[in-house]
């Protein structure tokens, strides 16, 4: 993982919008089949089935035994479910209240409050409409195998926007919907499965386009993207040949949790079925690793080996299954008796063959306890890491693994602890990123990595000495009008070039000013924003812009104190981009005039002009004039007014003696009385700030390089930034990342309006505003989308 990428990531929780769904008047069968019935299968049918604990008469459910439900089964489950709901009234529906344990339920709470299952149930009860599933299920190709093994390969190789992932161009006729950061929604899996199976003939490798095209055996505009010798191609071949992960009716979850550990440990030794040669190799099983774990692929391989339709070693309810006969001596077995019939292990395997089911083990979810978000602490004390907000659906005991992913160069840092509470210790200020993974000790029980960012503020003794003594005293008064939120907003925009997230805002408002400001200036984002400001000043934008990699490398270098801000300025002024932008090669004299003016605000003398080349820049940047101009510029940028000459000279003297003081000086300015007084004068957001704000506020993430460059160029190209912001916003809100709610599933409209005001304008709305916006929603044309558009193009959004 690139450190510079991690360095630029901050914790922010994107607003939780639901997927855009359409709603009808009554419960929909298709939606039920796609979103509700899977929960029935995974969670409820263990008990609510013929073999289950709940009396079958009470909410009987059809069982699929691992295979997809037939239409008849789905219809029956649907009818039973409908009897237990009140349409449009989730709170009055037993189907929801029982598994939430809001009413007495023998099975207790089985659905998590606020979780995806609950959401799907609610939407279904409210009439959400689904699409009829098409193709594949129950046919010659296995959906489970596709989902587990094939989908990711096609996502990586084929679902690129320029190829089959786009909606225009030659590849669009065979459209594969790309994943969202490696994750596929069920509907995406089904759609892609349908498209792929249209281009595959069962067991016919010579007629399956999905094999012929990517290997170049058939004309393919994309060329050869898969080598026939590759493992990926091998998996595609297995798919076309009918490889299945459906298990022929045997329960996958039970196998993973209980049977596979037995078979893997007992049979998967290298001398027997774990080896690659010998008699046992025909039935290959993976053994667990040294800590008893299997990878997902090993689980898949073992399951497929045992349930392979071509030669199944286990068949539902069949006592003649080889997996029962061979290890018990019931059939000739070179390995002899490995599982006595009286053993618990044999009984487990027998139960599985006879239809035992288990709930799929769900991985835990890691979450911080307390307020969460980016942690900040002054250098000197361990930083507590609190992951007590983590949870596990099965309430299993969790263990935690901490990995330090990023730290400032030269820092001696470590994380101590293996439980939900640990601590980071270090000897250097800066940004740290720790990756946390939780495990419940069962197959499939490892969480996604969760990143915690820690900002350690303060300075080492050497760093403190390198910036020299303080020049501008900190203000001792409070923010005018006591409006701390105004200071927080302004400081974030000035220092980081963006507004605070809701979580950052909540944390920052209560923080002491000096701690807040020190934390902001100690982030890589500060340096990134400082660089962008210099680019704007020097006209290094558009075609004269530096590459994204270079900018991010420079950001990290500045943050890690590999080099300082003034040496960086030197690099910019002597860069090819700067020379080209100012026609330096064509008209050197004019070029040096421009350069001089930007450095010191005057034309060069003839003597100075004679000293042409990079030495000129070096020479000028050592003069008092340069430092005074730099000091003036920093001050004006932050306070919005000129510094007194006296102050500018003092700052210049400090900079010339302590070149590392550039950041410290800006910090002092932001803590000064002049800065506090400037809060009463709203400032227009620069195009840089607006470009960041729009993408972050609407999509919940930082803009990528092309988004940032295009947006900030366009926003700077019109005095009316509101008009351009509206256009950019309308496009961004059309993105799947925007996760817009519809009016129908907004719930409490007033609450949503309040949340939206806080999110976009960083303040609570007045009662009058809430009333006006809620009332406006009575008009058909006023949707949540339009409200967001109104706010981002309002004068208030354009200032800070």
């Amino acid at each position, binding site marked *: 993982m690139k450190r510079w990428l991690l360095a630029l990531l901050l914790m922010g929780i994107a607003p939780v919008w639901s997927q855009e769904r359409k709603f009808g008047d009554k419960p929909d069968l298709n939606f039920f089949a796609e979103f509700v019935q899977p929960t029935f299968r995974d969670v409820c049918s263990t008990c609510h089935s013929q073999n289950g604990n709940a009396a079958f008469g009470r909410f009987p459910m059809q069982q699929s035994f691992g295979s997809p439900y037939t239409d008849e089964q789905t219809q029956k489950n649907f009818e039973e479910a409908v009897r237990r709901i009140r349409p449009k009234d989730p709170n009055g529906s037993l189907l929801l209240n029982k598994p939430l344990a809001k009413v007495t339920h023998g099975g207790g709470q089985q659905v998590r409050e606020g979780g995806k299952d609950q959401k799907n149930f609610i939407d279904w009860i409210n009439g959400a409409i689904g699409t009829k599933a098409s193709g594949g299920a129950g046919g010659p190709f296995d959906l489970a195998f596709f989902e587990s093994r094939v989908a990711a390969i096609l996502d990586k190789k084929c679902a690129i*926007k320029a190829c089959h992932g786009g909606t225009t161009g030659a590849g669009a006729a065979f459209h594969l919907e790309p994943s969202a950061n490696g994750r596929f929604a069920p509907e995406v899996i089904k759609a892609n499965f349908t498209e792929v199976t249209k281009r595959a003939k069962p067991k016919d490798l010579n007629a399956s386009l999905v094999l012929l095209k990517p290997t170049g055996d058939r004309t393919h505009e994309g060329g050869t993207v898969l080598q026939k010798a590759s493992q990926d191609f091998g998996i595609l071949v297995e798919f076309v040949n009918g490889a299945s992960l459906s298990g022929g009716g045997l329960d996958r979850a039970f196998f993973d949790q209980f049977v596979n550990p037995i078979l893997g440990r007992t049979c998967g030794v290298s001398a027997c079925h774990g080896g690659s040669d010998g008699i046992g190799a025909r039935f290959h099983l993976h053994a667990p690793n040294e800590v008893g774990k299997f990878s997902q692929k090993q689980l898949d391989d073992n399951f497929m080996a045992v349930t392979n339709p071509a030669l199944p070693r286990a068949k539902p309810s069949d006592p003649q299954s080889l997996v029962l006969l061979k290890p018990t001596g019931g059939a000739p077995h070179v390995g002899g008796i490995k599982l006595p019939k009286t053993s618990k292990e044999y009984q487990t395997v027998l139960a599985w063959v006879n239809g035992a089911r288990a709930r799929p083990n769900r991985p835990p979810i890691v979450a911080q306890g307390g307020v969460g978000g980016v942690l900040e602490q002054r250098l000197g004390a361990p930083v507590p890491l609190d992951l007590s907000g983590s949870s596990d659906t099965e309430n299993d005991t969790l263990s935690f693994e901490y990995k330090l992913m990023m730290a400032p160069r030269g820092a001696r840092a470590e994380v101590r602890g293996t439980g939900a509470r640990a601590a980071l210790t270090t000897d250097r200020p800066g940004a740290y990123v720790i990756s946390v993974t939780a495990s419940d000790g069962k197959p499939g029980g490892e969480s996604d990595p969760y990143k915690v960012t820690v900002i350690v503020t303060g300075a080492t003794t050497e760093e403190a000495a390198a910036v020299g003594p303080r020049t501008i005293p900190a203000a001792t008064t409070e923010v005018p009008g006591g409006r701390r939120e105004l200071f927080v907003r302004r400081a974030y925009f000035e220092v980081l070039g963006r507004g605070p997230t809701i979580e950052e805002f909540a944390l920052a408002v209560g923080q002491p000013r000096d701690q807040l400001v020190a934390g902001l200036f100690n982030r890589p984002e500060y340096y990134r924003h400082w660089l962008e400001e210099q680019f*704007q000043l020097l*006209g290094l934008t*558009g075609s004269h812009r530096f590459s994204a990699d270079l900018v991010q490398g420079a950001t990290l270098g500045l943050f890690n104190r590999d080099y300082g801000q003034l040496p960086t300025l030197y690099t910019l002024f002597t860069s090819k981009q700067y020379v080209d932008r100012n*026609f330096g090669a*064509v*008209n050197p004299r004019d070029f040096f*005039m*421009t350069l001089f*003016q*930007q450095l010191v*605000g*005057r*034309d060069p003398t003839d003597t100075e002009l004679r000293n042409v080349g990079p030495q000129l820049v070096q020479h000028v940047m050592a003069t008092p004039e340069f430092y005074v101009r730099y000091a003036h510029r920093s001050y004006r940028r932050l306070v919005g007014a000129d510094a007194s000459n006296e102050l500018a000279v003092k700052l210049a003297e400090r900079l010339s003696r302590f070149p590392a003081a550039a950041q410290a000086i800006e910090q002092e300015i932001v803590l000064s009385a002049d800065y506090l007084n400037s809060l009463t*004068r*709203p*400032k*227009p957001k620069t195009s840089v700030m607006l470009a960041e704000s729009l993408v972050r506020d609407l999509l919940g993430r930082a803009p990528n390089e*092309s*988004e940032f*460059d*295009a*947006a900030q160029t*366009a926003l*700077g*190209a*019109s*005095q*009316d930034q*509101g*008009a351009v912001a*509206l*256009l*950019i916003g*309308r*496009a*961004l809100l*059309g*993105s799947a*990342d925007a996760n817009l709610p519809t009016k129908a599933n907004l719930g409490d409209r007033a609450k949503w309006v309040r949340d939206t005001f806080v999110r976009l*304008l960083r303040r609570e709305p*007045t009662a*009058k*505003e809430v009333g*006006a*916006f809620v009332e*406006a929603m009575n*008009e058909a*044309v*006023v949707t949540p989308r*339009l409200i967001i*558009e*109104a*706010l981002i*193009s*309002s*004068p*208030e959004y*354009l*200032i800070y």
Partner: protein
Amino acid sequence: MTVRRDFLRIAAGWMSMSSGSAVPQAAAGRVQRVVLVLFGGGVAFNDVFPRLNSTTKKFDTTRDFAGKNIFKLFCEGTGVRFDSPMIGHHAALATILTGAMHPPEFRGSERPRRPTLMEYLRKQRNLDAGQIWMCVGGDSAEALLSHSTHAQYGARFGANLLNPRGLFGGQLAQTLEKHGKADSPSAAEATALAKLRAAVDGTPATNVFGNESTTQQKLTKLIADTMVGRRLPITGPAASDVWALRLATEVLKQFKPTLLAVVLTAADVGHISYRQYASVIEANDTEIGELVKVIDGDAQFKDSTAIFICPDFGRESSPSATGGKDHAANDPNVAASWLVARGAAIAKGAQPAQAMRTIDVCPTICALLGARAEHAEGRVVTELVAAG
């Protein structure tokens, strides 16, 4: 074709009046709008106009020349000697727009300190931003000329700036297409948007620029339609200037502004290549012709609009080492520049008592439109104004 007056000869009979004077009473009210084209980048008289015979003082229009439409305007109106010292493009343009001399070290990273003519008009005539527009062909440097940092004027009175290169260069449209549609709101949506924005009670920021709701609505539609309908299909050295002029023509049609300023810069390619420089002049001249057609073809504009065209300064007469033409400060051809004016209240063939200067443009246009350039250094060139 002959011309009635040779505009290098100083006409007698007109006395210059002191700076800050109003135009003659008879001219008041006749000029409802002004179009000012700053043909920046350094454009020499000889490269725009037909050859002038130094003996007969007549223009030879039998041979091809680049500025046909500009010459036509000159014939219909007037052309005057324009003293424009070579102080750098940004300083020269700032000088024209503010009426105050800017030093050479005023380069492309600052705003003017004295108010621009756009600010004078907006503040003194209480015009909203939808009445004052500036389209620029260059980049961020020219955009800084849309308003000054003067404490009593500034951003809130600034021009409605548009830079087509930043909006229609294709990069924005391509980036946004990856997400959704950057279309303008429908009429019903626009009405609802205006109402919602008005319901936001936040503290109004009186020191920043802002458009009226209907202006913003029309502007959004203009940008969206232009962005979606046409990328930047024009290529070549004049591309950004041509787009600025075309956009200005659209602005004129849709907003009917009191002042429309267009700042062009592409001619500076003359440093590298004369041929490209000439092609820029020709391309811009063609677009100026289209702009004038719109003015002349609309009864609302025809008799009430004055047009001014001038460069920031000229160029040397001899080619440079690269085959282009530079603009050295000490070359007399550079400073001896030209200005053409035509239209409402402009006296045909008028000649000022002394050469018009770059600092005179702002006070003159302000006076024509009923304002006073109180911080300018130049004078109102009343000689240009027709008696009535």
